[in-house]
């Protein structure tokens, strides 16, 4: 009789984790056109699920409860958009008008600097026309982005149509689907599968809810700050600061760039306002780190900062901005899965002699 081949527990964990992450990567690749609406639907699900569960407990059918919470979400989103969008579009238009001046100013600055450099060193600096070219290109580039805004808006509208549909099916059917998938596990790993699922679900749900609250608070603080110091488009930059705050370490410095550019691009604005814009983002960060993170986020993920930074860079390289946003929850979930498999695999499941 041929002896049965056995794998060491460590190798089993490594192989299983590699298979799981390979499947997840394949799924992300195949679903890439729908990745944003799917992720948005999961975020909505994390927020809406407690309410739909309560409605179902009151005797409402799963479909009716899902529709009700979705209708509520649509009403809230519509109310917020009807209030915010006119201001938002006015602020984008104001920024669009300032862009030519900004690029001209940047080009002029580079030209002046290169001339000064030539005078000081006596060495001719090539690309004296660089400033002018940059101004032209930058201007065209900025205008192109802003003129593509309608297409971007259409894409967003499509996402906003698909995401609620997916949210409806998630709220209605996710638990049944999850139960079916976990029921496919063999007896030996059935409890372990549920254990890991429970840990990942709890952590991701805490993280998503915490991050939504965190972004809203940072956006509110930043908007108020920008308004107090006298920056023209406080809501636009405040919301942007809140959204970029989702990306750890990298997001806050990125959030400083748009208001600084806007101030420097406004001929009528005091250049010192740029410094104030940076201070506002820093104050929002202080509030975030001292008050919001300890109470909302600290316990939801427990990753080393170096792991987070490397993860953001790698995920950002492969999946862009979306990857940077997803890096932390994806790494946290991967860590729980590997730790759970490591702790739970490796014992025989049949009594010796039976």
């Amino acid at each position, binding site marked *: 009789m041929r002896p049965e081949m056995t794998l060491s527990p460590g190798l089993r964990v490594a192989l299983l984790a590699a298979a799981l992450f390979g499947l997840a990567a394949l799924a992300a690749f195949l679903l890439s056109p729908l990745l944003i609406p799917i992720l948005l639907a999961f975020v909505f699900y994390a927020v809406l699920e407690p309410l739909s*569960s309560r409605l179902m407990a009151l005797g409402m059918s799963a479909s009716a409860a899902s529709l009700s919470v979705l209708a509520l979400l649509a009403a809230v989103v519509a109310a917020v958009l009807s209030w915010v969008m006119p201001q938002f579009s006015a602020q984008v238009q104001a920024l669009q008008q300032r862009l030519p001046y900004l690029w001209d100013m940047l080009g002029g600055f580079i030209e002046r600097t290169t001339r000064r450099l030539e005078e000081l060193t006596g060495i001719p600096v090539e690309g004296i026309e660089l400033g002018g070219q940059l101004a032209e290109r930058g201007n065209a580039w900025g205008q192109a982005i802003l003129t593509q805004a309608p297409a971007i808006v259409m894409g967003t509208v499509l996402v906003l149509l698909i995401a609620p549909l997916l949210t409806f099916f998630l709220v209605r059917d996710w638990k049944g689907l999850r139960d*079916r998938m*976990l029921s496919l596990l063999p*007896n*030996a790993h*059935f*409890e372990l599968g*549920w254990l890991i699922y429970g840990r990942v679900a709890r952590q991701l749900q805490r993280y998503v809810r915490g991050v939504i609250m965190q972004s809203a608070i940072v956006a509110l603080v930043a908007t108020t700050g920008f308004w107090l110091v006298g920056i023209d488009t406080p809501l636009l930059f405040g919301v942007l600061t809140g959204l970029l705050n989702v990306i750890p370490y990298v997001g806050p410095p990125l959030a400083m760039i748009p208001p600084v550019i806007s101030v420097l691009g406004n001929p009528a604005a005091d250049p010192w306002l740029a410094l104030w814009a940076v201070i506002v983002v820093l104050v929002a960060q202080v509030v975030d780190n001292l008050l919001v993170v300890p109470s909302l986020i600290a316990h939801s993920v427990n990753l080393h900062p170096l792991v987070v930074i490397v993860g953001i860079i790698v995920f950002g390289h492969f999946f862009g901005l979306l990857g940077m946003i997803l890096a932390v929850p994806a790494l946290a979930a991967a860590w729980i899965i590997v730790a759970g498999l490591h702790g739970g695999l490796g014992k025989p499941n*049949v009594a010796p002699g039976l």
Partner: protein
Amino acid sequence: MSRHPLWQNLFRPTADRLTESVQLWRATPLLAGISGRKARQLVADMHHRHYDTGEYIFRQGDVGAGAVMLRSGSVEIRAGATVLAELGPGDFFGEVALVSEESRTADAMATTPTELMFLMRSNLDEWVQRSPRAGECFMRNLAHVLAERLRRANKQLSGQGIHAP
């Protein structure tokens, strides 16, 4: 409204089996004082699994994810070579895992072909979230069950001349 069988959840217990399972659970102290409707909602989310003779349900040291009830067959609870308990249909065990992620303190092994119902902590949490009052009642019942198990363990230890702290 009749639904085509193709679209039904094939893994959900059928109505008769569900009623039978609800009756088994309602006979335990865990569901004492909980309405039939709420009990049915909880039991509908449980998971039915079949184990062969000699197959472990869990091992000592495994982190538990839920409690287990026997629908049919028999299970031995063992610590090493010592058999601590022999369980039959209607008995439940592993309920400590409904409270916290503790390691199992003994092995549980099927001694005949056995059908089990698992009540997972995740499912219980969801049910408690949906039905806070029934959830409170369940948790109180669970505390009574755990206290009773502790009292019996203390009595057993005292009988052996060992006194619990």
